[in-house]
């Protein structure tokens, strides 16, 4: 009986978190859409500051990760394709793989680790030092003031970063293709774009948009519900990264399934 009780309480606990995150999402959309109608705008400067932090600040590491991933896919697939004498197919393999899957997912994972953790830690510290409460007593809604700028920054910047990741991945594959597999550079690109359709790019961008929502909401939620001093902030940060990672992979699977079964 104990065993089932435990499972039940875990399920109920998870369900409560899900409901709370959805409530935060609704609240965020409310302030984003209805806020301006009630003459309560979100400050442009704080959105801009968050965009610089989340986007520009993550650019170098995203470029780094995706460039080397491009090289790795090229080398791994070349090894297999060489058996069929189909070396040139490395080009579309890298391009489609990056655009559809690895660009959005790797970027999201990097940003979840860097930005999501920072959001959770910052809001968590604000929560345990009464700063969130101070905002509320000044009649400033924490969702409008703290969550919406971070939310907007991530849903704008994550697709932008993904575009960079796609390009850098393709560049990495290109370097392997041209210098190691001795493919003609011009042919490499024409072949890449012959196979890579617009759909590959936009499905990837839709994914990264969803990941942006996920990372910002999970980070903000974990931060805002932090309890118990420094230890609580540490827990919130860890939990936000772990939850974001799991949700990113889960949503990736769901969205890939969606695009896969609706492509007819």
């Amino acid at each position, binding site marked *: 009986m104990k065993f089932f009780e435990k499972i039940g309480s875990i399920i109920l606990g998870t369900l409560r978190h899900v409901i709370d995150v959805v409530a935060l999402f609704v609240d965020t959309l409310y302030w984003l859409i209805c806020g301006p109608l009630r003459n309560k705008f979100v400050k442009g400067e704080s959105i801009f500051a968050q965009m610089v932090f989340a986007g520009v600040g993550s650019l170098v590491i995203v470029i780094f990760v995706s460039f080397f991933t491009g090289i790795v896919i090229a080398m791994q697939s070349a090894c297999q394709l060489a058996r069929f004498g189909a070396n040139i197919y490395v080009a579309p393999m890298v391009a489609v793989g990056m655009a559809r899957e690895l660009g959005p997912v790797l970027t999201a994972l990097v940003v979840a680790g860097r930005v999501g953790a920072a959001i959770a830690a*910052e809001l968590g510290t*604000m929560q345990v030092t009464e700063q969130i409460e*101070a905002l509320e007593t*000044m009649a400033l809604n924490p969702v409008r003031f703290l969550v919406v700028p971070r939310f907007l920054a991530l849903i704008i910047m994550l697709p932008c970063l993904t575009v960079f990741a796609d390009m850098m991945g393709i560049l990495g594959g290109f370097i392997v293709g041209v210098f190691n597999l001795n493919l003609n550079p011009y042919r490499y690109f024409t072949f890449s774009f012959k196979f890579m359709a617009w759909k590959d790019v936009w499905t990837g961008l839709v994914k990264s948009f969803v990941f942006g929502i996920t990372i910002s909401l999970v980070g903000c939620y974990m931060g805002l519900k932090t309890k118990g001093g420094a230890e609580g902030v540490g827990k919130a940060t860890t939990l936000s990264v772990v939850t974001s990672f799991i949700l990113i992979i889960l949503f990736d699977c769901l969205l890939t399934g969606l695009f896969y079964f609706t492509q007819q």
Partner: protein
Amino acid sequence: MGAEVVIKAENVVRKFGDRTILNGISIEVYKGETFVIMGGSGCGKSTLLRHLIGAIKPDSGKVSLLGQDLSVLNEDELDKVKKRIGMSFQSAALFDSMTVGENVSLPLKEHTKLDKNVIDIVVKMKLEMVGLRGFEALMPSQLSGGMRKRVALARAIAMDPDIVFYDEPTAGLDPIVAGVIDKLILDLSKKLSITSVVVTHDMKSVFSIADRVAMLYEGRVLEVGTPSQIKSSKNEMVQQFINGSPDGPIKFFQQKDDYLEQLIK
């Protein structure tokens, strides 16, 4: 006193899990007075304060602020009431990512349509009141504890509120700074006729600033009265508390008989 009642709590009950923090509290605070809520740690002082400012809703009972019942207000109306109160937090709760000046100007920037130059002047005036003019550009982390509390005070009065709440304004400060803060609270209520509600267990400041004092114990109001009434109170708990004696009806240690039992269990 026939003065106008600005804060009224009626039979406020609040439970956290099995623990009853507030057990039917009723108080009234009159316009312009300095009302002190005192009591031992964990007696529900801070929780009561959070009910008074509308941050927490009571399980049962009613809180009215400036003549409005907080439980029936919608978010916009509650915000309107909140703009007329200020709160100085125990930990100062300054925004780490903003300078002192930005901290003080934040409510003005958000809630008023004042010109930036006007706001700058108001910020300077508020900082002057707490003796910190010229510190606008510093970050909160560069300030000492006492200075942070004074900035928090400047922020609390930035909107020229009708009521200011102080959560342990002198806790953890040296006696001189504590005295300065007490004087500031007095000045504010005398000069600007602000109603002040102070939560503290610092006896020295209780008797130097209070017009009236309420003593809380285990979620109930033990006694309300002027400082001199409290001083001459016949209630043993009140006497023990203001004299700070370890022996008395308020037990700090648990009963000795089950101590042995718990040790060998």
